[in-house]
């Protein structure tokens, strides 16, 4: 179990995440550090596969906390994200109440007294007993705190954002029927977005805004080193250099870090010692996900390998 206390410095964050295999840039580490110090959620934006979701997982693993994940999608609403009433249970209780009506009203002599007793009983139906907590409420109820990952917030509707506002700023939720639920320990909240839709200002204002782009060559090499230990340094350099060249092309979907790691694994599996045109051609589909992209990259392979090799010498 790692320490539960907030991290003490940016370096501590960096090394803590590194211990979980997440190589963070200084900006990422600063964001994580600040979010703990001033208790603010982090909104992480950036292209797919650069490690937005991984960041939340790494924080949870490092700080030994539970991770609660809420995957957003169109039509996600209160009932699925926050809480829902257990309708069936409520209705079944009504049935039981019907049978027991005599007992409940047994002591009442007048109609007024009977009504009063029934009213007292009615409140029971909208109590904590009948609330089904969904991820957001669950996150608030964790006694030891947790990492709450609200994944792909840009896929949800605009209304859903408003629903989040109270949680993000005050770590509490108001349930009209019985009041406000505050977090026992404020969760560390990570929101991720692929910028499919522009998020509201109110939401952005409540978060630290972190943009994770494609990492610099050195950083990416370190990431590969930590994720794919079996790969030789020379090959690592070469392949990362190659990928950086590919990213300069105008492609439908640029290869991101997750593709780099996949490719490294494939290369290790194929026991490649260095890049050559043959092996790149055979494995290009790991890197590029569209037929058109592969076709666009094909003719460049040889030049890119040469370039990567050259930058090797100087880098």
């Amino acid at each position, binding site marked *: 179990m790692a320490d539960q206390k907030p991290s003490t410095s940016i370096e501590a964050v960096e090394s803590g995440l590194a211990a979980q295999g997440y190589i963070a840039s200084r900006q990422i580490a600063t964001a994580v*550090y600040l979010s703990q110090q001033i208790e603010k959620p982090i909104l992480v934006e950036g292209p797919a596969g650069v490690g937005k979701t991984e960041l939340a997982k790494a924080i949870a693993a490092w700080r030994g906390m539970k991770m609660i994940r809420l995957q957003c999608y169109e039509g996600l609403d209160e009932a699925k994200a926050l809480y829902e009433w257990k309708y069936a249970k409520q209705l079944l209780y009504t049935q039981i109440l019907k049978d027991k009506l005599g007992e409940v009203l047994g002591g009442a002599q007048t109609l007024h007294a009977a009504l009063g007793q029934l009213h007292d009983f009615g409140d029971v139906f909208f109590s904590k007993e009948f609330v089904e907590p969904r991820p957001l409420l669950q996150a608030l109820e964790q006694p030891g705190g947790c990492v709450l990952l609200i994944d792909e917030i840009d896929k949800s509707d*605009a209304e859903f954002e408003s629903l989040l506002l109270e949680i993000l700023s005050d770590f509490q939720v108001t349930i009209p029927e019985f009041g406000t639920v505050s977090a026992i320990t404020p969760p560390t909240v990570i929101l991720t977005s692929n910028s499919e839709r522009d998020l509201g*200002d109110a939401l952005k204002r409540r978060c630290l805004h972190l943009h994770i782009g494609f990492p610099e060559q050195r950083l990416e090499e370190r990431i590969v080193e930590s994720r794919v230990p079996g790969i030789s340094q020379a090959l690592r350099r070469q392949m990362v250099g190659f990928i950086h060249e590919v990213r300069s092309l105008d492609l439908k979907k640029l290869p991101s870090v997750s593709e780099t790691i996949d490719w490294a694994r494939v290369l290790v599996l194929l026991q490649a010692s260095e890049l050559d045109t043959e092996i790149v051609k055979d494995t290009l589909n790991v890197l590029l996900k569209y037929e058109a992209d592969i076709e666009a990259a094909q003719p460049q392979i040889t030049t890119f390998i040469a370039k990567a090799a050259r930058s090797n010498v100087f880098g």
Partner: protein
Amino acid sequence: MRQNLHRFFRAARGAGVHVSPAESIDAMRAVAQVGITDRAILRDALLLTLAKSQDEKLALGGCFDLFFSQPEPRQDQPEADYEDNASQGSDQSPPSGSASEAGEGQPVELGSLAQMLLSQDRNAIAAAIASASGAASLSDIRYSTQRGIFSSRILDAMGLQRLRDDVDELTATNPTLAERLRAALDALREAVRDTVSQGLALYAREEAENLRNEILRNAPLARIERRQVAEMRALIRQIARRLRERYSKPRKRQRRGHLDVRRTLRRNAAWGGIPFLTAWKRKHRDRPKIVALCDVSGSVAQVSDFFLLLIHSLHEVVDDVRSFAFSSHLIEVSEILEKKSPEEAMAEIMSKVGFGSSDYGSSLVDFEKDFMSTLTPQTTVIVLGDARSNNLDPRADILRRISERSKRLVWLNPEGRLAWGFGDSEMPRYATFCSVVRQCATAQQLERAVSDIVATYQ
């Protein structure tokens, strides 16, 4: 440092980053956590708390670099500060300063500024300029025309008057020294001018941009100069984007609401009220239907350009829009607007029906003949045009029928109310059949009108 941060927030606003008080508090808290010694980390922290998008991050990063390339002004006690610097300067380097000259038997007591300039202590001078720009509140600079006044304010705050006196006095007693001082003063003026320019770059961008946008928003669309057209397009696109953000909804969405207790109980009556089947409340909404008729004739060619741009964005916001363009005859352009980029679509539409002389009558005949059936009691019809029909039959009777078949008929006219009804304007005759008639000559009016139309559907 707090002062300095506040100045930075102002500079950030200048760079187009929206910094509200709440955000500045966050930034302060963040800075309190990370400290200010490590500039790279300070930069990260400010970028994280203040910038809300990648564009803003870039702008703010540039702003940060520009801002912190200046020496920090010492606003708390400027006077004492450079008094101090100056005396230090003269203490440390008596041979090069006034002391030596004075030692030669000329009892001229020079002002602190003169001493500082003669001692050529660059750091001290830079610090003095910085604190003087603080005293002259350089961060209030807004327009490039203010450069002169701020320069002289800063120089005054540094003690220019005293320096002049010194120079005058020295010219008589020690011409060489006076010459040196004059040269140093010229250099100082230049340095101050640079500082002011930098200040202008830091603090004034937003104001200038806002002002320009404000003017543009209220400028008549028909009289936009050629060089402004691109800016205007950008503005309209910005308006369109805002409309889209405000009103667009995902096309498919679940309409399930809360449990409908009454219907649930009724439905389950057969089982003694035990809820086997649940019934849910549904939200229902009007199917949005808009039909837009856009005049693209010569007389309104420039305005209709912008109209089309806006209709193009309307297509993105509302599901069910059909658009028609006309000058002497009318064609449907929905498909062109939906499939093509705004520029391509506009070029194609203009080449098909644009720039002719307008004939509202025959265009309305075209519409009645082919498209009358698209109108339902839920439809809002928007007509964009100046209602100038070149003295041809306006066929207001067709407009009446359109109005009768639809829910609302909105007419947006780029001409001012005063012109309606004069010359060949048929506006008064058409207006009787419209639910709303609005003048719509500027970007702002255009935005309001379209926003109102779209809003009724949400």
